[in-house]
């Protein structure tokens, strides 16, 4: 890992917070990451016509304010209507005419199916593709589910999102599959989240599982992984940095924050692994009425 980035992320978290969705940030990380690519410096937001877009944008802009380079200001934003279903050419042109740009996009599943195709047509590079859902049923095993396919651990948003969501009393799972596999050289991991107990598979050390409030076999089952697997503990270096907090309103904002944090290449809480999951089940389940119950969407981070 890049040494400068290592300094930025090292020991990002200490304990929990009383603030719902408090955002852990590192003072150093708010400055420009010198390793950041040109496209990350030219990051734009594309908002689909979904009920969650506004909340996602709120979180995304908060992340930009924290992590964006000096003078970047707010993320430039484009609004997407229903044109992808009616005339996708407009978006195809937008992609093919973009140069050296990073798009963070959010949309529903119908639009996402088409958008993925347009990205490939435009020779786009897909850094991360996330599916995000809140259970509509109060009795669901987990109330929030996030699943990412990510090009490499450096673009992983799961660690940052887990660190935000665990401060709330809702259960969640976050699964990340990294296409470019990294294998841990030792059993020691960088700055693991202290609220989670961390494990790896004995026969597949590049599979990491971080659990809070439930044992590893049960967490493994909840994310659809093999249940009979043998998990061994991962040890980590202690986290030392202090935390600032920025309240975010809900899990969609938190997701927007994490996706943009990763898109800006802050490299927060990366791990050398092929896949990892965070699973949290609090003792006292959150049963409040949630206006975002049943909401689901897809997020993209692409370079064109």
């Amino acid at each position, binding site marked *: 890992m890049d040494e400068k980035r290592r300094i930025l992320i090292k020991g990002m978290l200490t304990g929990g917070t009383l603030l719902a969705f408090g955002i852990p940030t590192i003072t150093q990380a708010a400055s420009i990451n010198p390793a950041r690519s040109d496209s990350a410096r030219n990051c734009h937001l594309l908002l689909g016509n979904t009920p969650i877009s506004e909340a996602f944008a709120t979180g995304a802009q908060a992340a930009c304010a924290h992590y964006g380079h000096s003078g970047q200001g707010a993320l430039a934003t484009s609004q997407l209507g229903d044109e992808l279903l*009616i005339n996708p050419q407009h978006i195809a042109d937008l992609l093919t005419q973009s140069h050296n740009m990073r798009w963070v996009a959010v949309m529903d599943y*119908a639009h996402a199916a*088409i958008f993925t*195709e347009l990205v*490939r047509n435009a020779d786009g590079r897909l850094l991360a593709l996330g599916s*995000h*859902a809140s259970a509509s049923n109060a009795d669901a095993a987990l109330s929030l589910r996030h699943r990412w396919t990510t090009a490499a651990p450096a673009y992983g948003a799961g660690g940052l999102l887990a660190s935000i969501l665990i401060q709330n009393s809702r259960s969640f799972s976050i699964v990340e599959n990294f*296409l470019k596999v990294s294998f841990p050289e030792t059993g020691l991991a960088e700055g693991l989240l202290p609220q989670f107990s961390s494990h790896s598979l004995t026969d597949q050390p590049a599979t990491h599982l971080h659990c809070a409030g439930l044992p590893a076999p049960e967490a493994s089952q909840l994310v*659809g992984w093999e249940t009979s697997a043998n998990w061994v503990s991962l040890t980590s270096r202690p986290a030392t940095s202090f935390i600032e907090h920025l309240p975010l309103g809900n899990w969609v904002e938190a997701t927007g924050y994490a996706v943009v944090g990763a898109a800006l290449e802050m490299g927060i809480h990366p791990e050398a692994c092929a896949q990892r999951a965070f699973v949290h089940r609090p003792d006292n389940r959150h049963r409040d009425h949630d206006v975002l119950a*049943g909401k689901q969407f897809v997020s993209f981070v692409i370079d064109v």
Partner: protein
Amino acid sequence: MASQYIALPKGVSEKNFDAAIRDFRKVLGETSVLTSAEQLAPYIKTMMPVPDSDHTPSAALLATTVEQIQKIVAICNQYKVPIWMISTGKNLGYGSAAPAERGQVVLDLKRMNRILEVDKDLAFALVEPGVTYQQLYDYIKEHKLGLWLSMPAPSAIAGPVGNTLDRGVGYTPYGEHFLFACGMEVVLANGEVLRTGMGSMPNSNTWQVFKWGYGPYLDGIFTQSNYGIVTKFGFWLMPEPPAFKPFVIQYQHEEDIVEIVETIRPLRISGVIPNAVVIAHALYEAPVKAKRSDYVSGPGSIPDEAVYRIMKDHKLGIWNVYAALYGTQEQIDVNWKIVTQAFGQSGKAKILTEQEAADDPAFAYRAKLMRGEMTLTEFSLYNWRGGGGSMWFAPVSQARGSETLKQMALTKQILAKYGLDYSGEFIVGMRDMHHIVDVLYDKTDPEQTKAAYQCFDELLTEFSARGYGTYRVNTAFMDKVAETYGPVQRKVHKTLKKALDPNGIIAPGKSGIR
């Protein structure tokens, strides 16, 4: 030590694959050989209930000429590297652009996108595999050729070559696409270039007008197969009719499918209704107008009571028959009388013309597809459940009412066992029906993903046990479907494969053929 590739072809060492990649780059140039995770990620996403890692490619090649493809197959033969061809790669719900097996190299033909010929008088086109329907549509409009296309639901972003080679369908009178294919150019695994039919004869000008040529007809073996790489494709286009009259007929009870099919069959066979009629269930049309979550939450399939509420709220029939008449106004007037009399007999049908259904978004997109215009509205289906899971279950039925009712009831029963909804339609050929069901599930939910896999497996098992064959399937279930057609057919397929591609480099696993 970690590999520099995100996957490797089965049985190929990294050292050999390195050498193959170097050779591919000599042929195509550095930028047309994709190996990074970021570049390959757009090829990986599938909607099937299996890990995407099962279908991760090792590389993608962006070829632009036949000569390049000849060199690519030579390299593949040398290093025993398998390739998986895509034209535009829009086989959504059937595997998308991802290869059948992990590690196969995607040969992406999207940059081979020349429209080689469109003949206004003989009404045919000759195109390369990367040509999209939108591109061809624009060309025809720009040159005022007065021809119509027939396209599947992914319309604008898909293309005629990939769709026809997978034996896809559209909704105009030319809706059974392979019936209207005429002449192919195919790069064989040994690098030779075959032109089928009349195309084999030097100086022939009848390649796109006479299908059969001389001797055994070969075009069929290059559809749903892995015997060659189609690089040029001819097909017939429909002359724009002077008049067009789309309509929808609604029925209120599921068992009315019997009456619908018995009424339509003679009209289709006699040509009164010339197009590929769609009989769509309410739940196939509902996503255009409604959200599932507004009617039901929690596990389980949607109850009939909720379906009836959706029908009432959104002016849908439980069956919605979309059809159209084409021709001169006089022809249409005569045929309209025949259609209304036939459907009016029982008093169950509610017939709506274009004027009467003008504000209905479901009718609007169906009417567009029936006149060969672009719309992707059908993809609203993916918002019904959400979660990105979709598999097309596509058994074939006789065009006989009792058979369609049996198929619908069996499908619905099996889906319900696994908590899934019946989002189905019948596309009416003259004597057959393509029964198309979108098995929608939430791929972010491990339990539902597992249920979807088991459900699909059971659908295939139960249907084949009753003699109902599947005409097309996603890449995760190709072997299973191939098995249902019996050992003799499989052996013949395999014999052909051995003869044409002894090293098995072209799309191993396609339609269960290796």
